[in-house]
């Protein structure tokens, strides 16, 4: 591998890792802070992608679709929390798994009824539909770089909200000791609703941003679910910063694994996970 190729592969790794971070960040919030094992997280990604497809077809612009889609996803998340998840906080993980697995089936069936089973494409917004020439034959789509930029901004914003704002403080406190926070007169139920809605919106946003490059197809959520859990576990459950570091590690492991040891590329990511967990059973960065 020559140096130029190495640099482009590094760019590929960063870009893939950042997209993975976007998907996994919502999961780590919901899993880490609320203690909910949400198998339906991939479905929210799928719903986001289909929202992007439907709304882009209706409005003619992906930017419009995202502007409309985010409030919809937030409202949908808040509704689900109120209707279903609020009843689960004191139950054990098995019941959460049952509920969220059921949701996967329901969402997939609804998707099939409403939009059908065909593969769809979503057009890249015109102002981002360009590419940068990297070598004599290869160029890099600007849209991919734009996604990376959005992911970096979101990572910083999330970190700021959780670490530096009053809301973030309440969220972290609620995670440490729910009863104590309630005793201090903070409406913990409302905070959980906000966190869950945020988690759903992050997954949906990831789906919307990924739609033009991944295309939109049945069961697409299941593709990202497992890798999201891997990232959450490697990064340390509940840590946004950890999820970012883990997503980048997975991005590098996957990209270079495919190129350097293609026979084993299917398991490289899991080997990395196993090694990290032996080294730090709580994940790279514990809650913080």
């Amino acid at each position: 591998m020559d140096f130029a190729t190495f640099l482009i592969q590094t760019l590929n790794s960063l870009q893939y890792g950042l997209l993975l971070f976007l998907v996994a960040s919502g999961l780590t919030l919901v899993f880490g802070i609320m203690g909910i094992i949400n198998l339906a997280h991939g479905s929210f990604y799928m719903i986001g992608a289909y929202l992007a497809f439907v709304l882009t077809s209706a409005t003619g612009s992906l930017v419009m679709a995202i502007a409309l889609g985010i409030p919809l996803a937030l409202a949908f998340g808040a509704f689900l929390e109120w209707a279903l998840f609020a009843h689960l906080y004191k139950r054990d993980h098995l019941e959460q798994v049952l509920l969220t697995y059921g949701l996967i089936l329901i969402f997939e069936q609804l998707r099939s009824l409403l939009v059908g089973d065909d593969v769809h494409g979503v057009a890249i917004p015109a102002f981002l539909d360009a590419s940068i020439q990297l070598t004599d034959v290869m160029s890099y789509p600007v849209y991919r770089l734009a996604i990376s930029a959005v992911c970096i901004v979101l990572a910083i914003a999330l970190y700021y909200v959780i670490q530096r704002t009053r809301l973030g403080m309440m969220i972290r406190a609620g995670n440490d000791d729910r009863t104590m926070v309630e005793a201090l007169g903070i409406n913990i139920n409302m905070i959980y609703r906000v966190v869950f809605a945020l988690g759903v919106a992050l997954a949906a946003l990831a789906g919307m941003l990924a739609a033009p490059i991944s295309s939109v197809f049945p069961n697409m959520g299941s593709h990202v679910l497992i890798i999201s859990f891997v990232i959450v576990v490697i990064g340390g459950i509940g840590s946004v910063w950890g999820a970012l570091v883990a997503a980048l590690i997975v991005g590098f492991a996957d990209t270079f694994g495919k190129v350097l040891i293609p026979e084993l590329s299917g398991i490289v990511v899991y080997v990395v996970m196993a090694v990290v967990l032996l080294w730090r059973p709580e994940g790279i960065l514990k809650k913080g």
Partner: protein
Amino acid sequence: MNKKFSAARNFVLSAALVAAGLGSAHAEDKVKVGLMLPYTGTYAALGNAITNGFKQFVEENGGKLGGREVEYFTVDDESNPAKATENAKKLVSREKVDVLVGTVHSGVALAMAKVARDTKTLMIIPNAGANDLTGPLCSPYVFRSSFSAWQPSYAMGEALAKKGVKNVATVTWKYSFGEESVAGFKEAFEKGGGKVVKEMTLPFPNVEFQPFLTEIASAKPDAVFVFFAGAGAAKFVSDYAAAGLKSSIPLYGPGFLTDGNLAAMGGAGEGLLTTLHYADGLTNAKDAAFRTKYAQTYKMQPDVYAVQGYDAAQMYEAGLKAAGGDPAKQEEVIKGMASATIDSPRGAFTLSKAHNPVQDIYMRQVKGDQNVVVEVVSKGLEDPARGCKL
């Protein structure tokens, strides 16, 4: 007392009726067709197209096969190999079907073929392309109306070698159909003097292709050959174009790369050349009639899967005709099918010793939402059926 008596009488009567029914069975019997296809899940559209094609032929044939009414038994195989044996056995032992038609997914078809072999039931595969089905696992009872994975890819290998292409890189999912496709391509391409310089695979159904595109850009082969299908194919073609490679390094593959995916690619597929045993824009009269009728009946355009379903019915009709319309004379049905020439919309084909179509492979080019035929690249291509002892 009275009640008991009438119950007994009813029993005797119905037993007599059943016996009478059995007695006259041979003249009146229907042909029992078991359709075991995916009607839900990712391949639902393919299962429906195959069913539509099959039923269209039966309709054109006066609603009959071998002169007898047709009774259908339908099972949704869900493309789930774990349920395949049970589903196939249900059709064979409980419904006692005369012929088992299925399926799309190769894993499911392999399990079905085992049931067909073990129970000596006639089976027609209307899609699944695993080489093994008409290779090492071939059987007198198992026929295929579609293709083997080897066929379209081998034809592409021949065509590129003839074109003078020297170095090719390949990419596919690491599963049997992908690997069989690449192997078929490589066999013909290297026989013709070309060289496969880089073989890349990724786990199914992973679709993060960027690392491979970078490798291709760095290796700069004369061309790239890929096997992908469905959403993965749409993504690969889009990514390939977005990376700017489409204009400098031509992309080729078997027709599954573009069939049914062109809308999702949003123009990125325009101009691509692929090989398959069916194409848009064929000029034979059979195809024109088939397409008109299909569009009228089902309010949509037929695809290669509908053709394969239609031909499965044609093959069985040929077998029944040879056996005087009696599905019970299985040996004659098999002989009739094996020696038939099927007048397919894809162009007429015969069957190889291993019961796989010996057929023309077309080079097609993407124009708008169609895969338009360019030429026949391989005339009467026969799968080598390696490992088959028929």
